[in-house]
């Protein structure tokens, strides 16, 4: 018994010693990568890969430099055939081990996104160091500029991007663009993917990022973009909105309605001649956010009036978005997938002609809005109205 105990003890101790601290990396031997950018290169088949590495400033001792103005990150850049080759090349230039686990954002320049992002993304799906929650973003212009930029509030641009995307996701889960989500949606037959499009603004040496809408991808290539209003139409058609607003402007005044939640369901109808109609129903619950004008109406009249106008506005937005999708020949609403799901046999015959059928498809939207709340005030501002 004693011998066995000793043996166990010896094995335990030797296990610890022989392992020799394998895989142990002290924190000060790591270069923590916070963002990765990919830009198009002038040479065919190559791309510019940019890594943003967070700068670590020692707080121990009084050696801490005061010059925090030169940014909190530095850039590693390499032109190469593939990202892994680029990272290996960068490793040769770096005194520290490149540590990819904490990558917050993956940025694609507009140009490379147009050439296709699928060949670039394989490494990220395969490598175990990259998290599936990495946000993917398309940048107007070059991704490198964003990674180099000095941001107004956030210490690191990549953290700023991740936080911005987080806010976006609170509007609708369809705006979530984690690597995992994107990869999952790639498997869909016809449905076009979307990725957020951001623009870097700069004024007085300060930069900030602005999401300007969505880019539409077909087969991993950018085929067009949706601006703010079209984006709104897109998420309205997808349903499951958790927050958002819609602005209604009539000749009587102007009102902004907060969308509390909305849902949508769609049903494809295929005629004998291959004519496709998508019937979509959208139900939204809203509250009154802001009123301007409407001075000669009672609050009940306003609410009734706005409800009708909001429905019209929703229909228009969704309709516009559908048309925009058709113009790009990108199946934004997933009509093809719906047909495949509901009538698989029919889909087999439609599939081959899909690219010619889809631009002729029609959308039939029916929107119902419910105005449930007037906000904190039940009246409208008017002079001499005190009772």
């Amino acid at each position, binding site marked *: 018994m004693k011998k066995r105990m000793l043996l166990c003890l010896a094995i*335990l101790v030797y*296990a*610890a*010693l022989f*392992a*020799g*601290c394998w*895989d*142990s*990396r*002290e*924190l*000060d031997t*790591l270069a*923590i990568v*916070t963002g990765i950018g990919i830009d198009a290169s002038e040479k065919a088949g190559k791309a510019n890969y940019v890594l943003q590495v*967070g700068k*670590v*400033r*020692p*707080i*121990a*001792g*009084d*050696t801490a430099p005061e010059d925090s103005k030169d940014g909190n990150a530095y850039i590693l850049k390499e032109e190469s055939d593939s990202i892994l080759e680029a990272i290996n090349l960068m490793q040769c230039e770096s005194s520290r081990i490149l*540590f990819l*686990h*904490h990558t*917050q954002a993956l940025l694609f320049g507009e140009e490379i996104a147009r050439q296709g992002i699928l060949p670039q993304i394989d490494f990220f799906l395969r490598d175990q*160091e990259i998290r599936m929650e990495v946000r993917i973003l398309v940048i107007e212009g070059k991704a490198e500029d964003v990674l180099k930029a000095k941001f107004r509030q956030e210490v690191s641009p990549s*953290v700023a991007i991740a936080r911005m995307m987080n806010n976006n996701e609170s509007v609708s889960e369809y705006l979530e663009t984690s690597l995992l989500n994107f990869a999952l949606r790639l498997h869909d037959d016809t449905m076009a993917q979307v990725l957020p499009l951001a623009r870097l603004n700069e004024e007085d040496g300060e930069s900030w990022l602005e999401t300007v809408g969505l880019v539409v991808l077909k087969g991993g290539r950018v085929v067009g973009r949706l601006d703010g209003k079209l984006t709104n139409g897109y998420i309205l058609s997808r349903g499951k909105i958790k927050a958002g607003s819609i602005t209604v402007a009539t000749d009587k005044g102007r009102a902004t309605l907060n969308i509390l939640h909305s849902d949508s369901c769609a049903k494809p109808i295929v005629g004998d001649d291959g004519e496709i109609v998508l019937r979509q129903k959208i139900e939204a619950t809203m509250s009154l956010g802001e009123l301007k004008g409407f001075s000669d109406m009672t609050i009940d009249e306003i609410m009734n009036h706005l409800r009708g106008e909001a429905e019209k506005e929703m229909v228009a937005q969704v309709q516009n978005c559908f048309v925009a999708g058709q113009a790009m020949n990108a199946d934004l609403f997933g009509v093809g997938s719906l047909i495949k799901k509901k009538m698989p046999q029919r889909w087999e015959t439609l599939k081959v002609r899909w690219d010619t059928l889809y631009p002729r498809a029609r959308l039939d939207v029916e929107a119902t809005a419910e105005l449930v709340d007037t906000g904190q005030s039940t009246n409208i501002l008017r002079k001499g109205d005190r009772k």
Partner: protein
Amino acid sequence: MVVGVKTLTDVCLAYIDGVADPKVISELKYRLEQIRVDAILDSGYIEQYIEDAPLSLFSTVSYTEKPDVAAARVLEGRIAIIVDGSPFVLAVPMLFIESFQAAEDYYGRVIYASISRFMRYLAFLLTVFMPSLYIALVSFHQELIPTTLLFTFAAAREGTPFPAFLEALIMVFSFEILREAGVRLPRPVGQAISIVGALIVGDAAVSAGIVGAPMVITIAITAVAGFVVPEQADAAAVLRLITMFFAASLGIFGITVIFLAVLIHLCALESFGVPYFRALLPSRDAKDTLVRFPLWSMTKRPLDLAHGDITRLGFFVPPLHPHKKREEGEDQQ
């Protein structure tokens, strides 16, 4: 009973006949009779001669200085050993959870007592595993640290010369030295020691860049948490060092290995025939383990400790709605 050939120390066993287990009584008497040494100077001597696992990190004989605690233990069916000239009263059999049960738990009200009981378990885990977790995280599993926290840690590690394990060892040992010095000295001097040692040296070590600030915080919390469960403080101190060593060589995996090894050991441990983890098994004793139930709900004495007269309290309805009940009773009359 007299033990010690030269010192002739009086040793007294206190138990309730009909509540304490006769087998434990005879076993204890037998073990005491086996002691043929020349001196018993303190109850600690007795403890070492009668305990079940002398080489274990965990003690299997409990001790207390408080008469109420000793009385409570006797009432639960344990046997108290009172040694002449020692303020410490031993009690057997000992259960693991005993170290986490404070007298104040039973004197205070239920909900807060349960919270502080829970805190004690947490503090024990912290004092054993916190330095090793910190070592494992910063030298093996940086991907588990949230990004912003990682940069804070990295900033503190930047420029400190020693690896995290060595840093932790320095801190733990300097703390142990400080504590030892504080205990040996008279109280006013002891306070001066802790101020000079902890405040000045700690602060200087950080600002000189020898030790990182997160490490100082970790060790400080570890040290303070160690005082929450004084009965297991010695076991915790040794365990802490072992887990630190394994965390430094194998990361979280090493901590897991040690945790499992200790768990297996604790499950196998017995004190006078009673399993060390007895009350942690699902049974009626669970009312007094992780949380403390109201006194009126603990109607029976602990299992395996008490034999024979196991009822503490007959059927008792707490006065939840006294006015209502009394009125109803009057109506019936």
